[in-house]
């Protein structure tokens, strides 16, 4: 089995249908069906990268050669994924209806909104949960609405009100599905820099299941996709990179509005990094919008913040220290620090293990924080 074969085939699939750069390492890739061992690895990679729909399209167009049985397995995998996606879309309809009934403005994020607004065929965009954004002022009430609608809250905040002040989202479960209730797009400094009010003021919509669902504007969808791809994981995941390329291809972006918010929210370097990753990992020539950010010169603060997200194996601890740096005023910094250093017992139990006394829990927590801080200073 050759891991490189399945890795290259996955990249070929991830860039399918977009303008290729024809990188030498993808020459001839996909012209012959993979052997059995490579196929098993490829199938697993496609599933975990949520690229089965693009693989079906690449196979139908002869870009990805498969044997008959491999093709049948791929279709079966895609059928299972899309059945799940349809039930998630029904969950999105229920969740948005419940929140709107409570007069809480709500925007659909990622998944269904990207599938229906950016991709030429929504079956190319797989997703695994429901993401919605509500205003910070309504966040706690929105959580109660979801619980009343039969969802279970699965996250515990370090202190009451922490997520509303400093966090990104609360996680809920309905049946076997996860619902992420966001109040902002990213954890850490970007939770402060991104103007969530503007996200609501410039919202867009798409039809789903006989209803009109609100979502981010094309410019904000593009920024979110770039942030998710670059700041969400290192190395970046292929699907969010594809999202950024697809949102640009959909052709609805107002460059002036994008440039204005990218500068104000300090995401120019994030978009530049997304352009670079689209080029290198998807083997796609970035479009003029992604490419326009190639030459940006980010500020020192922006560079430091982005680096905290990019550090290999980055954790909440690393974005936490950036967060302290960018929080405006002494009182918010102290409140944040207090929540991180002296969280509630429920949080301690969840995050450091349930055994021993409260003070043992704190000791474990402080050791974790110390290790993170020390590694950061050493540049580990």
């Amino acid at each position: 089995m050759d891991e490189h074969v399945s890795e290259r085939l996955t990249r070929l699939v991830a860039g399918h249908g977009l303008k290729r750069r024809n990188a030498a390492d993808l020459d001839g890739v996909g012209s012959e069906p993979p052997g059995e061992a490579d196929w098993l690895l490829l199938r697993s990679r496609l599933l975990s990268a949520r690229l089965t729909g693009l693989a079906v399209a690449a196979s139908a167009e002869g870009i990805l050669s498969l044997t008959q049985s491999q093709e049948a397995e791929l279709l079966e995998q895609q059928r299972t994924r899309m059945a799940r996606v349809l039930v998630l879309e029904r969950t999105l309809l229920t969740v948005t209806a419940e929140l709107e009934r409570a007069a809480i403005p709500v925007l659909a994020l990622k998944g269904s909104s990207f599938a229906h607004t950016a991709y030429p065929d929504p079956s190319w965009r797989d997703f695994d949960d429901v993401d919605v954004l509500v205003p910070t002022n309504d966040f706690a009430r929105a959580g109660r609405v979801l619980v009343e609608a039969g969802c279970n809250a699965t996250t515990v905040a370090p202190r009451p009100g922490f997520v509303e002040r400093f966090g990104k989202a609360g996680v809920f479960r309905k049946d076997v599905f996860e619902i992420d209730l966001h109040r902002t797009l990213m954890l850490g400094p970007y939770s402060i820099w991104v103007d969530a009010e503007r996200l609501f003021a410039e919202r867009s919509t798409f039809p789903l299941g006989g209803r009109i669902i609100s979502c981010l504007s094309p410019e904000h969808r593009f920024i979110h996709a770039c942030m998710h791809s670059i700041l969400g994981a290192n190395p970046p995941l292929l699907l969010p990179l594809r999202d950024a390329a697809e949102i640009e291809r959909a052709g609805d972006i107002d460059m002036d509005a994008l440039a204005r918010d990218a500068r104000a929210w300090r995401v120019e370097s994030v978009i530049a990094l997304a352009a670079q990753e689209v080029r290198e990992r998807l083997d796609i020539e970035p479009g003029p919008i992604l490419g326009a950010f190639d030459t940006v010169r980010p500020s020192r603060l922006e560079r430091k913040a982005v680096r905290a997200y990019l550090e290999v194996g980055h954790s909440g601890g690393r974005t936490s220290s950036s967060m302290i740096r960018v929080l405006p005023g002494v009182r918010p910094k102290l409140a944040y620090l207090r929540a991180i250093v002296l969280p509630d017992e429920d949080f301690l139990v969840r995050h450091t293990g349930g055994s021993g006394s409260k003070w043992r829990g704190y000791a474990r927590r402080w050791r974790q924080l110390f290790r993170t801080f020390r590694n950061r200073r050493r540049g580990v």
Partner: protein
Amino acid sequence: MSDRSRYARAPAVLWRRVGNEILVLAPEAPSPSSLSPAAAIVWDELETPSRLDEMTDSLASAFDRDPSDMRADLEGILRELERSGMVVVEESVEASGG
């Protein structure tokens, strides 16, 4: 079935294409299901709402079939899709062919 009726995909139905298959989830259905191959062809034809005679002509020509046979088959499929809530019928106020 009236020639003036216009058939359309029910807006509340969620769906995805999987290869040549159409996977659908109607509002009251417990779980997604696949349309039959013939119903999937009709579903594709309903990308824009259409009258029975328009679909008959289009599909009879595409599949090189006798229009009256095609019409009979289509009526059966549309009736089934309508019964299961996948398709809605809009009574057209325009005169047929107008």
